[in-house]
């Protein structure tokens, strides 16, 4: 998908669990494809899915699976707090 077609709910999910940094305040909501793909890949790697960077059915299904609220990648969260 093109970045501007990636649903906000997906971006929110990726940011919430530490895979995607929040949008840069300077550029507003603009989000390029590269970090999104990287974030999806990181999520797939962490979850044991095939690392494609594509929001396939298995990835979306896992995103809908009930889970703990805490982020998976905490380092990103720390960077965010420093900002």
């Amino acid at each position, binding site marked *: 998908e093109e970045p501007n077609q990636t649903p906000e709910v997906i971006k929110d999910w990726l940011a919430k669990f530490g895979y995607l940094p929040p949008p840069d305040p300077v550029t507003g909501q603009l989000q390029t494809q590269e970090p999104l793909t990287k974030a999806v890949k990181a999520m797939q790697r*962490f979850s044991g899915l095939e690392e494609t960077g594509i929001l396939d059915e298995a990835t979306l299904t896992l995103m809908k699976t009930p889970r703990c609220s805490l982020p*998976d990648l905490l380092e990103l969260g720390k960077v965010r707090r420093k900002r």
Partner: protein
Amino acid sequence: YTQTATKWNKRNLSWRVRTFPKDSHLGHDTIRALMFYALKVWSDITPLNFHEVRGDNADIQIDFSRADHHDGYPFDGPGGTVAHAFFPGDQHTAGDTHFDDDEYWTFRSADTHGMDLFAVAVHEFGHAIGLSHISTAESIMRPYFQGPVGDPLKYDLPYEDKVRIWQLYGVRESVSPTRALAGAKDVNTAEYPALPALSANHSSIQQRRDGPDRCNTLFDAVAQIRGEAFFFKGKYFWRLNRSKHLVSFQPAQIHRFWRGLPPNMDSVDAVYERATDHKIVFFKGSRYWVFKDNNVEEGYPRPLTDFSPSLESVDAAFYWVHDSKTYLFKDGLHWRFDENSRRMDLGYPKETTPWKGIPSSFDDAMRWLDGAIYFFKGKDYWKVTESSLEAVPGYPQSTARDWLACSEMQSDSSDMDNSKSKVQSRQGHHDLSRSGNGYEVCSCSA
């Protein structure tokens, strides 16, 4: 994915359940006992000691909260995020553990749609004492809920989790890290809180006493949703995973899973997943509802006239990949709907379907993962393969046997549409075909 570990400097930690679930069938004592055992899982192997206290000064404050509860981690209703806990540290919230009160919390339940409170508590207390998420599939610290973990009194942490907690706190004196923990499970448990035993009057079974018998019923609707099969009957449904295995023998309640249908709606007519946006459409009478995941969309129900002025109700609905159209059926007639243009194709309704060898009217139909279309009527189903427009020879076959994991002998009621028949226990079901000479043979169907 390692990060700086935080841990408690003290070894004696107090805990308290500050708020209990509002509407849970689990009693306060059961919840406290589950918390006790979930903490004990960790203290069995590390030199940490947990003790329950009264008052507001507990290290680990346990709450059941809803939505935004002012800690920066708002809950989101059923599903989604179900719980969280704060890592050890100096902040006043350190160790606090919150469960989403909108979840259907269960204990020793066969209901796979519930959240097993013990399993989630073990995970969250792992955070409360310093463990972060880990990707290892076997770990209790994997972020996704993976179902119940068995008897709280016998639960043994995966080795991965033991090693990680030992890295933080060391090994409890009575434990050998290279030996199984058999000894730790054999201690006198008389002083421990009691947990209600799994019994015939367990709540999850009680709720379904008046539920239908999957082996002996006529289904209202059948649908393939997200690659899984759903069989609807009355207020209940059964779910089969992609491997065509029943997720649970116990039916789930439609209203507990599909949020937003009228509470007094006692059945559905037809259900299908829209190909264009993967939203799920429910039909009942002259109205329909559109769901995004398991929540109804704003503005529904809408009248069926949105589809066609001539459509008063629907028996069956499914999407046919072959021509990328949705087919709606009623009393031997069918309509063909184009999801992209949101219009019925001209020339419909028609009496003759493209598929030969199937009944003129049926209860519902769905396309399954093998590419075939399955038509369900009464207790039978017909299969039409992707490459053919004709029912496969040898059909109809038994829906209960081939889809609902029933043996022939389980379909033993004379009432064809016995929606009020009591739930049969499938464990130890008497297999009369192998009874003889005064002996009875019991078999399990799964």
